[in-house]
């Protein structure tokens, strides 16, 4: 998928070994995670009938270890006279001083290898690779376009007999920002053992994985000095404004403890919320910018007396509670519907204006409760809920 050019370059380079050892004896594949670097090498080796010698980070610990396997493999041809391809994966994994020798040893081997070596890393411009880089053919792997990932996921769904909503797949693709591997992993994790995948099934992923991005945005909101900076951080991150609002709303009182700053921050958030309501009721999305201004720049400028210190960010409790009480709210609105039918009110009004009283009656007076249950036509689960809950 995608990266056709890169694949062709790699193929041409391997073929060039037939005409003698080329100037660059190694190819260095680089690019973001999950775009198919390793997979391409494995596929090529398979297609071109090469014997693949594969190693990864844990094998590079010391210079000796590298020489031991790669040295030997690179100097001798295969048992049956076929061609061999050495793959050194996860080069980013080489860390610390103990491995210094590792990169040097690899460089030495690359200089003198008698068979093609392919190196794989995310960041080829890491200073550790500066010497090594010079001896390698650099091949860049790019993120595939979202539609390409979509196509890929759809193909998998067809093969696995999963009926997936377009929206659900798009969500997975967007969340993983072009990382095909994690997209496929997500798809597998979510669709395993079922034949349908809806947007609802996947939406919960949002809060989990975007945490790091959100933390960056929060840092600039709570610690930056200029409005523009705070606003820019939000623009750049492309986080969902409602989700971001919850994060800021949860964290503002922890970050801005002085009562004066707290009032300013909460006022800004309340204003942001007010504009959010105006966007909703007028459907004029241009007003969204004020929502963003108040919740970012507004909160940022609230810091006057609280001294900046590092306070860890917290997950929005409200979101947790909302999902935790989802069942309960479902039950409440079901009872609300029953009440509404008898009492000429909407289920919303019933939940807030009648249900609390019903609850008290159910706790105190079994006889009256039984009568009302019959009158309202409540089922077992509803009765249990009204009697049992909230002791």
């Amino acid at each position, binding site marked *: 998928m995608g990266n056709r050019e890169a694949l062709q370059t790699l193929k041409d380079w391997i073929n060039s070994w037939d005409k003698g050892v080329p100037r660059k004896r190694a190819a260095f594949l680089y690019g973001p995670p999950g775009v198919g670097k390793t997979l391409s090498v494995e596929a090529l080796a398979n297609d071109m009938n090469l014997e693949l010698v594969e190693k990864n980070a844990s094998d590079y610990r010391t210079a000796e270890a590298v020489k031991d396997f790669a040295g030997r493999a690179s100097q001798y041809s295969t048992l049956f006279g076929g061609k061999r391809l050495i793959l050194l994966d996860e080069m980013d994994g080489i860390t610390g001083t103990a491995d210094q020798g590792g990169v040097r040893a690899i460089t030495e081997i690359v200089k003198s290898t008698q068979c093609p070596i392919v190196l794989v890393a995310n960041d080829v411009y890491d200073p550790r690779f500066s010497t090594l880089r010079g001896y390698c053919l650099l091949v860049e792997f790019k993120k595939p376009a979202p539609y390409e990932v979509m196509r890929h996921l759809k193909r998998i769904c067809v093969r696995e007999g999963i009926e997936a909503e377009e929206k659900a797949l798009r969500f997975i693709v967007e969340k993983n920002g072009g990382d095909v591997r994690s997209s496929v992993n997500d798809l597998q994790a979510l669709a395993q053992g079922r034949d349908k995948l809806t947007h609802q099934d996947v939406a919960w992923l949002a809060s989990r994985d975007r945490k790091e991005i959100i933390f960056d945005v929060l840092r600039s909101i709570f610690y930056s000095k200029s409005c523009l900076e705070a606003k820019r951080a939000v623009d750049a991150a492309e986080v969902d404004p409602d989700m971001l609002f919850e994060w800021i709303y949860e964290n503002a*009182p922890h970050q801005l403890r002085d009562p004066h700053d707290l009032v300013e921050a*909460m006022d800004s958030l309340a204003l942001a*919320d007010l504009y959010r*309501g105006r966007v909703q009721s007028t459907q004029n999305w241009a007003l969204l910018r004020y929502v963003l201004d108040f919740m970012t720049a507004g909160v940022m400028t609230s810091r006057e007396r609280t001294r900046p210190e590092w306070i860890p960010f917290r997950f929005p409790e409200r979101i947790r509670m909302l999902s935790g009480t989802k069942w309960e709210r479902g039950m409440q609105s079901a009872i609300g519907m029953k009440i509404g039918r008898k009492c000429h009110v909407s289920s919303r009004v019933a939940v807030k204006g009648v249900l609390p009283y019903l609850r008290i009656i159910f706790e105190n007076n079994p006889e009256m409760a039984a009568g009302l249950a019959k009158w309202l036509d409540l089922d077992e689960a509803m009765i249990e809920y009204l009697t049992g809950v909230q002791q």
Partner: protein
Amino acid sequence: MDYEMWAEKYRPHSLDEMVNQTEIVERLKSFVEAKNVPHCIFAGPPGTGKTTAALCLAHDLYGSGYREHLMELNASDERGINVVRETVKTFARTRTVGEIPFKLLILDEADNMTGDAQQALRRTMERFTETARFILIANYSGKIIEPIQSRCAPFRFTSLSRENTINWLLTICQKEKVEVLEDGMEAILEISEGDLRRVTNTLQAAASMGKPIDAEAVYSVVGRANPTDVRRMIALALKGDFLGARERLREMILKYGVAGSDIIRQIHLEVFRLEIPEKWKIKLMETIGETDFRLVQGADEEVQLSALLAKLTEAGSSIRRGD
């Protein structure tokens, strides 16, 4: 023994039984006499008899079989343009048999309809005027679009007077053989705000405890929207524990489903009882009023109320410093 919610059991069936809104009732009676009803808007606070008046009107107009000529829709449950278009159209289109040539369509909580839905409604009202008359019920007529308002006769319902409320309560107590002590009655009146549904529900829940109803029983009923809880929340905020106060608020709203409007009403009551300098009470009132207004506009209850709690936190710290 058969039980119902008392608010339903004692809901008047005919305009003659209504204890309040005398002027409105008189006008409605004249409609019955003329056997003609214009489109109407019934606006006013909850529990003041809007839905009851509409149902009574239908009853008096069509007689005991009035259900056949009447459709009751609740905009909160059946929102959206399509419902209005389809359900209302189907109902409004067909002519009724009988003396009165039109049907009655009650649209409750009409102020919860989106602008688009209201536009659709306006066209429907116009098209089917001959065969159907609409009664729109709303807390705030301001949320009904102008073109609809101008086509409707407005009726403004007001909160029940103290006297009316007491009479109402005593009637029910007598029929249900419930005893209410004097402080119990006072407590109910204090929390009632002229909302008869709330009053009746409170009475029934307090009666379910099986003892003569005193103030304590009433307050423990209001419990789940509990003054002590609100009091506790205010105390935490004033003490400087904003996070603790927000936690309480969150619990009330999310776990117990207490309405934001109930919470703010109680904050309003509590603030005057607080032992803080008098001028602060008025200062706080400005914020409380603004918050209340925003809640009416449909803002996020927890966010707005916690901004108010932040104000209380700040007030607490200023007061301690002697400002």
